[in-house]
């Protein structure tokens, strides 16, 4: 088994002990394990990744703003995690199946979700928006870690179909405490399922620090399941891309599951209902601001002469347009017909629900013409 395991520390919060290709000031460095997987990441690729990350940040800012203005019921901010999301998901093939959690706005965007797809469920208009079969993305999961099992099951299906798709499960550090994530690793390992686990270790599960979830680095668990893993700088989009290329190649090549711990940070609250000032220090947040994934890549691109005002303006225009569409979709949302609350509960008629539909329909009809 290819064991790609970066664990030079026993401290789960030691952010120095990660595989990294881009330092905090944007200097390209060499990592012997990741380097081979970064081949061909040229300026064009990097500009594309920067654009995706910038749009993700703008999507996130708009989501927060819309929630603050009362247009959305809730939003789960992703600021700071753009590299972990974009770097990994952009390495996937379009037909790889992605199983995200509720915070993976960048993943949804990169897979082709439209502006309305990102707001209508948070607004409470619909349970989900996009078609999972079209984007090969499952509806973002709120139950912590549940999707990891779905990804493994999907990957077991790929094995039975003789396909070469990989299933990707995204979850946070808190999810690694869940039984489902551990059961997912058992199933994936035992069956050699082509699945990649991407753990975004953003240091906080609502108010609980990662040290409550883990006494040792999270990436260290996977080898115990027989799953090779890498602990990567989650704010370094090049490292995230390289790590994901390795993991996908491993899984697609019939070698079974792989595990990535992307060490990153949630800059904002857990959700717009949360108050992180109650449980973490401003100093900690500021320290992470200096590791910002966008600033870092921008510095790198500037040093290479691949970032100029025209590019910045173009990205900003695109981001603004996407955000404006989100806003328009939220504000212009038309509440569904009341009877539709009863739609799609079953694929085939259920007489009990049919009776309720008849009664509720008659009740609604009694208001017509009043």
């Amino acid at each position, binding site marked *: 088994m290819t064991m790609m395991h970066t664990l030079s520390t026993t401290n789960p919060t030691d952010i120095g002990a990660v595989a990294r290709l881009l330092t905090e000031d944007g200097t390209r460095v060499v990592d012997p394990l990741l380097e081979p997987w970064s081949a061909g990441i040229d300026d064009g690729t990097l500009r594309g990744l920067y654009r995706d990350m910038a749009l993700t940040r703008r999507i996130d800012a708009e989501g927060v703003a819309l929630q603050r203005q009362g247009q959305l019921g809730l939003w789960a901010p992703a600021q700071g995690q753009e590299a972990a999301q974009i770097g990994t998901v952009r390495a996937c093939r379009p037909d790889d*199946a992605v199983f995200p959690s509720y915070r993976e706005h960048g993943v949804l965007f990169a897979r082709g979700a439209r502006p309305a797809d990102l707001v209508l469920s948070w607004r409470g208009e619909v349970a989900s928006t996009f078609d999972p079969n079209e984007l090969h993305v499952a509806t973002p999961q709120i139950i912590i870690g549940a999707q990891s099992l779905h990804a493994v*099951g*999907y*990957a077991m299906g790929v094995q*039975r179909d003789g396909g070469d798709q990989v299933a990707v499960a995204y979850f946070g550090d808190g999810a690694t405490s869940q039984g489902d994530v551990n059961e997912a690793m058992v*199933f994936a390992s035992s069956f050699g399922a082509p699945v990649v686990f991407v753990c975004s270790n953003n240091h906080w599960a609502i108010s609980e620090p990662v040290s409550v979830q883990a006494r040792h680095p999270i990436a260290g668990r996977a080898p115990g399941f027989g799953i090779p893993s890498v602990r990567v700088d989650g704010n370094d989009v090049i490292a995230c891309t390289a790590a994901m290329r390795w993991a996908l190649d491993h899984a697609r090549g019939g070698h079974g599951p792989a595990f990535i711990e992307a060490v990153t940070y949630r800059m904002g609250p857990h959700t717009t209902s949360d108050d992180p000032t109650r449980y973490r220090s401003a100093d900690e947040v500021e320290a992470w601001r200096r590791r910002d994934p966008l600033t870092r890549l921008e510095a790198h691109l500037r040093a290479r002469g691949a970032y100029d005002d025209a590019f910045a303006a173009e990205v900003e225009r695109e981001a603004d347009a996407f955000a404006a569409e989100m806003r328009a979709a939220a504000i212009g949302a038309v509440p569904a017909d009341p009877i539709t609350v009863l739609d799609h509960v079953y*694929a085939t008629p259920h007489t009990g629900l049919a009776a309720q539909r008849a009664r509720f329909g008659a009740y609604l009809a009694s208001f017509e013409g009043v």
Partner: protein
Amino acid sequence: MAALTMGKALTAALRRSLADDDRVLIMGEDVGTLGGVFRITDGLQAEFGPQRVIDTPLAESGIVGTAVGLAMRGFRPVVEIQFDGFVYPAFDQIVCQVAKMHYRTRGRVRMPLTIRMPWAGGVGAAEHHSESPEAYFAHTAGLRVVAVSNPADAYTMLRQAIACDDPVVFFEPKRLYHSAGEVDLDADIADAAPMGVARVVREGTDVTVLAYGSQVHVAMDAAIAAEDEGVSLEVIDLRSLSPVDYRTVTASVRKTGRVVVTHEAPREAGLGAELIASVTELCFHHLEAPPLRVTGHDIPYPPAKLEKHHIPDLDRLLDAVDHVQGRPSSHSAAGVTS
């Protein structure tokens, strides 16, 4: 027609479903080489291979959760939960994922899972091996829940469940696994009674008894005993617990005017309460007496040597029949309290 035990009928249904549709998979603990602890999957792995009949790790949430992913990929997993009381670790995946996926995705993702469970008591088993969790699942929108009472139904309803595009929780009364009956192995499921339809297993005129699973047999025994006393019981096997076939139920209650529900599960917030509430709404002016429940007690499932005091038996059922007829009980001094 062939005389088969319920266990063999279920095996035949699984074999037929695996043969008819290569997207059908069986998964669970010990379902492969061993053939399941009750041997319901006996021989199927040898016949269809380990890619179709999958011995899983011992993790119930993992079994159901991976089945969700397999269904998303277009398979039709048939999951075996080894015992009723072992389903609780999988409860989250069943109620939050299996039940809601179709609704959540507005019909774009189907969950054609069948979740089979050896179910309920009466076999002298250890703790956690005799539970009746059906109300939890019948209470959950998005699931269909069925309970079989005889080999013929076991054969057809399991095939119907596997063919159904909705998730089905499929209860198999373990104390009936060895009971035999005639099964038409060549039957077309399209010609059989639909899974959601109840069956009047014995016609009668005085009291309607609603039962399912092994309690159907208790009700039939009670009907024979009551006949000796000049009382005519109509026994209905509900077969489906979600949806309940209220067309059949209300037709009977309108005829008899009296109804008794019997189940092994505890009484409080159980299916009996739901059935009686609905019957009362639908048939109030036809009722001659308050409907009664005969159920398990509101206790954790008791030790095996005491379970006969928990599971409703013929005497407790006849006692309730006496009460709904307005007669002092001739069967029990304790009266109807549970």
